[in-house]
């Protein structure tokens, strides 16, 4: 049976949904093991066992977070060899993709990013050219490295849990030699809203919000949604760059995408056209976003959104 290694960087206090998705996917492909970096809390260890991890690999070094990606790739390469894994699964974040990239070179392994599903024979499914094509691709090498988009599958615990054995992997001493060092780290204030790339619902604003995201935030909170923005809104400084959706920002694929005051130029469409349902509110009836909206409202977002928020609250009593 294929050995599948899931890399979890700093699992924290509670395992993220994205990690549970990776473990669930790993079980469908073979015998799952986990290589983590950082501390392992008891709750996380219990969750890994419940999700069927057979072995937990930990690095011999504790300073991997002091460097940018290189040493983590060295550790992961050693873990893949120790485990005899033929498939490696990681998240699809910028950092995880770079670790996967370097791991691929170290192992002579093909890397496929932005994966949304994997067949049992290793065929990976993804969408390319801003969601205009869906493709299947396969690594032609003995080891395959796949970075998987969150929200791709529903996490499910294993039928029978495991009591994983713990193995320390020796990180090569040369791992940190030619690496950029992280000299300072500033944590960003948490918004309390779901992570944009993982959210089931996204409310996004553009030029039309004219500096006031208030009505969008109220609607997002009523729906349990994340806030996104077009490049026009982030360039204007109305909201942080990490909210940007589109070709040079994040790609989202939520169940519901509510676009408010965004014209829907191609660059913006690129980030959201794989959303299941698209709702658009815009004053300009000619906006291209109406060409792809399942439900479009030609109207003033400052009237429409607060009314919708009030109606949702009313219905929920």
């Amino acid at each position: 049976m294929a050995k599948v290694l899931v890399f979890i960087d700093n699992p924290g206090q509670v395992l993220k949904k994205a990690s549970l998705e990776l473990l669930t996917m790993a079980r469908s492909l073979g015998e799952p093991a986990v290589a983590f970096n950082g501390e392992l809390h008891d709750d996380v260890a219990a969750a890994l066992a419940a999700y069927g991890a057979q072995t937990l690999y930990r690095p011999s070094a504790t300073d991997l977070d002091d460097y940018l990606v290189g040493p983590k790739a060295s550790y992961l390469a050693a873990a893949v060899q120790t485990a005899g894994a033929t498939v490696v699964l990681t998240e699809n974040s910028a950092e995880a993709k770079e670790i996967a990239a370097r791991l691929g070179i170290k192992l002579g392994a093909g890397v496929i990013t932005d994966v949304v599903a994997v067949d049992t024979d290793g065929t990976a499914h993804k969408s390319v050219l801003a969601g205009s094509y869906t493709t299947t691709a396969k690594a032609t090498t003995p080891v395959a490295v796949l970075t998987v988009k969150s929200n791709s599958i529903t996490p499910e615990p294993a039928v029978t849990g495991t009591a994983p054995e713990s193995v320390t992997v020796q990180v090569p001493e040369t791992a940190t030699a030619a690496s950029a060092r992280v000299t300072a780290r500033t944590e960003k204030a948490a918004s309390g809203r779901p992570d944009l790339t993982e959210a089931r619902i996204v409310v996004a604003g553009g030029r039309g919000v004219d500096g006031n995201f208030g009505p969008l935030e109220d609607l997002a909170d009523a729906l349990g949604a994340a806030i996104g923005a077009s490049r026009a809104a982030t360039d204007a400084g109305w909201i942080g760059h990490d909210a940007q959706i589109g070709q040079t920002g994040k790609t989202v694929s939520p169940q519901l995408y509510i676009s408010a005051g965004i014209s829907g130029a191609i660059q913006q469409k690129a980030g959201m056209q794989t959303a299941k349902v698209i709702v658009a509110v815009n004053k300009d009836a000619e906006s291209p976003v109406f060409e792809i909206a399942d439900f479009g409202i030609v109207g003033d977002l400052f009237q429409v959104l607060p009314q919708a928020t009030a109606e949702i609250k009313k219905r929920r009593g």
Partner: protein
Amino acid sequence: MKIIVLVKHVPDAQFDRHLTGPGNTTDRSESILSELDEYALEAALQLIEARGGEAAGNKVIALSMGPAGAVNAVKKSLQIGASEGVHLTDEALAGSDAAATSLALAAAIRHLGADTPADLVLTGMASTDGETSLVPAQLAERLDLPQVTFASSLELDGARLTARRDGDTHADTLEATLPALVSVTDQINDPRYPNFKGIMAAKKKTITTLTLADIGVDPAQVGRSGSWTAVDSADVRPARTAGTIITDEGDAGIKLVEFLAAQKLL
């Protein structure tokens, strides 16, 4: 100082883009310089200008790998201000995945640094066609250079490089020693446009063409045969069709909620 900037000729994202041929490779007929590479070029120009420019012996080499048309990305880079252009082109390169691309580019960078190694290799944060962001990290790995990727700021003090990298949950300050590989985001600067003077000056600049033989790469290591991934199928996603469009008559917010309820999205 010597800076190599990687520039890619990509299909214009303002129009529909297509996959074509047996390997489902990108159709490059309507292509331009990748927008994200302009930030890398600008960052390079600012660094050499702060050090006395070309007059003080600094240079920016724009390097592009791709078919015949890719020379246009090099020409545009020269118009913007790069000192020299290099076009790596060979039929055997067609269909290269990130691993094969990084192998060829690493060999080209070593070739260009044979006399004086480059102090910096600069790239955009991703190409606007493949969008995998794999190549910068793979180049750093192959060239054994410190990797400073997704930089939203970049400062150089002698051989010490400092950069800021913004993540979703935190921002990092990174430090590395030259030579290094740096990829920059679209937050780092405002790229300049080519002006008349630049366009005229570009006509006198040299573009060197390199083939795989020039850089010592076996054709079997690149292209579709040398790639470590293969695209098996590509299907056009059905175009989204417009749904119901209404004009607000004072109750559109309520109609919106009714729509969401009907779609079981509440």
